[in-house]
């Protein structure tokens, strides 16, 4: 779900919650108002009942007949006013209580009617009954009022509690939701940060397993696409750089091919010239020589084709010395043509490494052609392998006796498009080599002294089962 929608939903929920609380508070307030209205009416009734009882007392004490009329009048008034606000009273105390009240009042009214018709104030029996009815009416009315007052207080208490606790609920909910949303955002941001860091290191990984269909999903998939695109571009650059190295190698290869061609040509010319003088054995020897030379040419061409063919990264356990020899074979003729005296010094019994042979060969060819270009008119090249300082790596060094790299250029030699060869260089060779070695979880560094030469050192991690998985992840 999109974060925007989540926030909107959360806001809707919060507003609904507040409305609900408001609704309950409003209900309570209404109930309270009804109760208060009843208490007001009840107060009036209580006063009326009190007055009735006073008149009743006057009648019995002084035989004041007008008192009875007053009581009758009060009863009629009260009955009328009860009927008038009956709805409100029902709402406040319910049907049962009002009926009880009415029946108390009716009984009292009936007794008053009886007394007015045929009673006298000396009728003790009647007096007792009337007094009892009046007392009951008043007591009931007062207890009702008291009860309703108590209820009003209760409602106020409950409302207070509801408001107080709903404040905490809303607050807790707000904190929980904002925490949840910000955690999701931070989690996605952290993933993007990690990916960005890995892209900076030249490892074009992608983020897998995106579950949330939010804005970050589109950002992450955009970055994934970018990363994949970068990986494709890197593969293209590696291939184009390989083709560039091939250009340099070609001079050597051409020379290498010229010799067997010349040999075959000379054999053919001599064979034709001396045919009659040659014995059968000699003729067979001549043809064997031709066959040997064609074999020589085939291997030269095969070697070059193997190197130039674009290949998918293919990590395998390998003996670095074997790879070194293959790379050396590729450059051997270029070295001879360029008058470079090369020494290969490979340490026996090295631990195996986990590499893409083709890519490592490319790095070596690149370093060697760089070295040759740094040694105009020839020089010496020392190529060696040995166990790394920490025993968990294999170290390769390529040292030349060339002109050296100025100290101010040294930090930039692995930067893309940095070149000291002017028009002749693309500035991609060493940057591609750097990328390849980093993808192998290895390290490449350079030391140089002006006028003395340059040494490139490559460190590759020794092959282990666990390391194998690690590199696979990095390369993928």
């Amino acid at each position, binding site marked *: 779900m999109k974060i925007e929608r989540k926030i909107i939903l959360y806001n809707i929920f919060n507003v609904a919650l507040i409305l609900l609380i408001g609704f309950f508070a409003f209900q309570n307030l209404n109930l309270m108002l009804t109760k208060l209205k009843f208490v007001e009416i009840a107060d009036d009734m209580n006063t009326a009942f009190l007055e009735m009882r006073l008149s009743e007392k006057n009648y019995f004490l002084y035989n004041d007949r007008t008192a009875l009329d007053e009581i009758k009048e009060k009863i009629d008034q009260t009955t009328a006013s009860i009927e008038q606000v009956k709805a409100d009273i029902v709402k406040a105390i319910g049907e049962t209580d009002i009926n009880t009240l009415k029946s108390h009042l009716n009984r009292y009214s009936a007794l008053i009617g009886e007394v007015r018709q045929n009673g006298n104030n000396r009728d003790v029996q009647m007096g007792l009954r009337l007094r009892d009815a009046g007392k009951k009416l008043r007591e009931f009315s007062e207890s009702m009022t008291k009860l309703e007052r108590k209820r009003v207080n209760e409602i106020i208490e409950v409302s207070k509690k509801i408001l107080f606790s709903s404040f905490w609920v809303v607050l807790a909910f707000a904190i929980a939701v904002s925490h949840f949303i910000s955690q999701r955002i931070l989690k996605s941001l952290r993933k993007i940060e990690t990916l960005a860091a890995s892209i900076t290191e030249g490892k074009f990984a992608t983020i897998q397993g995106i579950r949330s269909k939010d804005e970050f999903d589109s950002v992450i998939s955009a970055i994934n696409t970018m990363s994949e695109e970068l990986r494709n571009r890197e593969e293209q650059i590696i291939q184009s750089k390989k083709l560039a190295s091939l250009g340099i190698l070609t001079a050597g290869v051409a020379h290498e091919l010229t*010799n067997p061609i010349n040999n075959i040509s*000379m054999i053919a010319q001599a064979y034709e010239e001396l045919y009659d003088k040659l014995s059968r054995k000699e003729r067979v020897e001549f043809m064997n020589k031709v066959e040997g030379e064609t074999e020589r040419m085939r291997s030269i061409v095969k070697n070059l084709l193997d190197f130039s063919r674009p290949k998918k990264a293919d990590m395998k356990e390998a003996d670095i010395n074997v790879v070194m020899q293959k790379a050396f074979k590729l450059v051997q003729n270029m070295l001879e043509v360029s008058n470079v005296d090369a020494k290969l010094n490979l340490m026996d019994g090295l631990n195996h490494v986990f590499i893409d042979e083709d890519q490592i060969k490319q790095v070596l060819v690149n370093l060697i052609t760089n070295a040759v270009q740094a040694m105009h008119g020839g020089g010496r090249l020392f190529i060696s392998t040995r166990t790394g300082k920490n025993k968990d790596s294999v170290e390769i060094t390529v040292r030349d006796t060339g002109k050296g790299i100025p100290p101010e250029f040294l930090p930039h030699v692995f930067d893309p498009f940095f070149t000291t060869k002017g028009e002749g260089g693309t500035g991609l060779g060493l940057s591609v080599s750097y990328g390849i070695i980093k993808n192998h979880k290895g390290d490449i560094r350079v030391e140089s002294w002006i006028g003395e030469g340059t040494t490139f050192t490559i460190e590759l991690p020794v092959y282990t089962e666990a390391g194998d998985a690690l590199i696979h992840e990095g390369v993928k």
Partner: protein
Amino acid sequence: MNQYRVMVIDDEKIVCDMAKMSLEHEGYIVETFLNAEPALARLKAERFDVVVTDYKMKGIDGMDVLRDVKNLYPGTDVIMITAFANLDTAIEALRGKVHDFFPKPVKIKALKTSIQRALSKKK
């Protein structure tokens, strides 16, 4: 039958063998060397009429051979063979008073004609 002495220096054994067989067939006395060092040592001991040398070799190359031969025997002609058929090496070779210059693949007949021409100058 002439008895001219021809030296062939080339790091390709087949070049040496074929040149030797073909030239010996013409009646020349031929000695071949796979690199320049023993060849120059041999030249110090004995004069050759024509030296055929590869231009590009490990260690001492064709130009060094040319210079040493001319120092020892100004009259001996040097014929240069090279895999690099480029103008620069040709000019360099001609400036060094090389008699002739053959790019690979070498035509043996043309080489023989060139050797004969060099020898006929001496007569």
